[in-house]
């Protein structure tokens, strides 16, 4: 029984071991230069330890421990960033055309960026699941989906509230708004897919495929304002000639973007930790049911 367990574990370990120079064990035998696999030791010890440390995170227990250590700092950084950002939005001058409603931009734009960025991150995680079989990739993808959906929702709602005074309508079916709405629906679809399949590994693979297919929406969103005649304004920050927004508005925008990104990272890491714990509970309950049988 123990031998079978050992064998099963070694099979998966073999996958990971085949990808990395070496994974240290709990005794901490990860001194630089201690070559456990015959790979090139031309890595400087620092980078090698960094790579090893990153791959080490694949171990869920260590990941949880790391999150517990790092999370308070991240939360503090997020709160500080929001404090600066909100002060910046308070200070920001009124736009000569839009007046004070430009302050909605400081929420709308970061959330719009994040909604696309999170799907991009989920696509990378999907590759991690399907191609490299990274143990935590599907956990990362599963936890990112509700957060991405929330950010997309906020982008849509704040955009709608901004559009009502500016364009006279809450909604219009132009290319940019429609493609973001489709992105929102896809987020909800991925979340629904996760909830439909019981086994996390199978669900992860299905969701990974759906995520990669849906990634085609990202360039459509980004370039929609250029390819089609839309009501939504064209790109004014990330464009070829540099930003066209005045610095007095650009700086608070950047700070709020950083704040929302830090918020996402904090929430994501915390959610990943919760998900790992949840899977542990599930495994234990399955073991208990097995033993009782």
């Amino acid at each position, binding site marked *: 029984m123990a031998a079978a367990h050992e064998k099963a574990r070694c099979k998966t370990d073999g996958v990971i071991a085949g990808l990395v120079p070496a994974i240290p064990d709990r005794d901490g035998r990860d001194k630089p230069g201690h070559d456990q696999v015959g790979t090139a030791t031309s890595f400087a010890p620092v980078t090698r330890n960094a790579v090893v440390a990153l791959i080490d995170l694949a171990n869920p227990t260590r990941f949880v421990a790391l999150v517990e250590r790092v999370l308070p700092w991240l939360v503090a950084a997020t709160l500080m960033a929001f404090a600066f950002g909100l002060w910046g939005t308070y200070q920001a001058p009124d736009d000569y055309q839009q007046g*004070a409603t430009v302050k909605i931009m400081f929420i709308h734009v970061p959330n719009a960026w994040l909604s696309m960025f999170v799907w991009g991150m989920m696509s990378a995680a999907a590759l991690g699941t399907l191609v490299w079989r990274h143990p935590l990739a599907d956990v990362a993808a599963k936890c990112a989906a509700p957060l991405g959906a929330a950010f997309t929702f906020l982008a849509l709602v704040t955009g709608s509230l901004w559009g009502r005074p500016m364009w006279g309508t809450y909604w219009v079916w132009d290319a940019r708004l429609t493609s973001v709405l489709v992105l929102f629906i896809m987020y909800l679809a991925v979340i629904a897919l996760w909830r439909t399949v019981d086994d996390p590994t199978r669900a992860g693979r299905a969701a990974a495929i759906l995520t990669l297919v849906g990634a085609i929406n990202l360039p459509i969103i980004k370039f929609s304002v250029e390819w089609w005649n839309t009501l939504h304004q064209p790109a004014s920050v990330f464009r070829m000639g540099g930003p066209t927004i005045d610095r007095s508005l650009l700086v608070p925008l950047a700070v709020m973007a950083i704040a929302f990104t830090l918020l996402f990272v904090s929430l994501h890491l915390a959610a990943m930790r919760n998900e790992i714990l949840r899977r542990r509970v599930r495994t234990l309950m399955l073991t208990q049911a097995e033993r009782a049988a």
Partner: protein
Amino acid sequence: MDLGPHAGFIVGAYIMATAVVGALVVWVTADHAAQKRALTELERRGITRRSAESRPLKMKEPA
């Protein structure tokens, strides 16, 4: 602070953002508490992971 004629929309947007962010934070925190509760309950009933019982985690070294 004078928010102009469209103050309602601006305030509404910020309230919406606070509500959504707040809901996310509450969800993550409550979920954490629930999982911890479940784990302590299982531990109390004596159901632990096999690696927590016995030897420390060890990776098999290739021959």
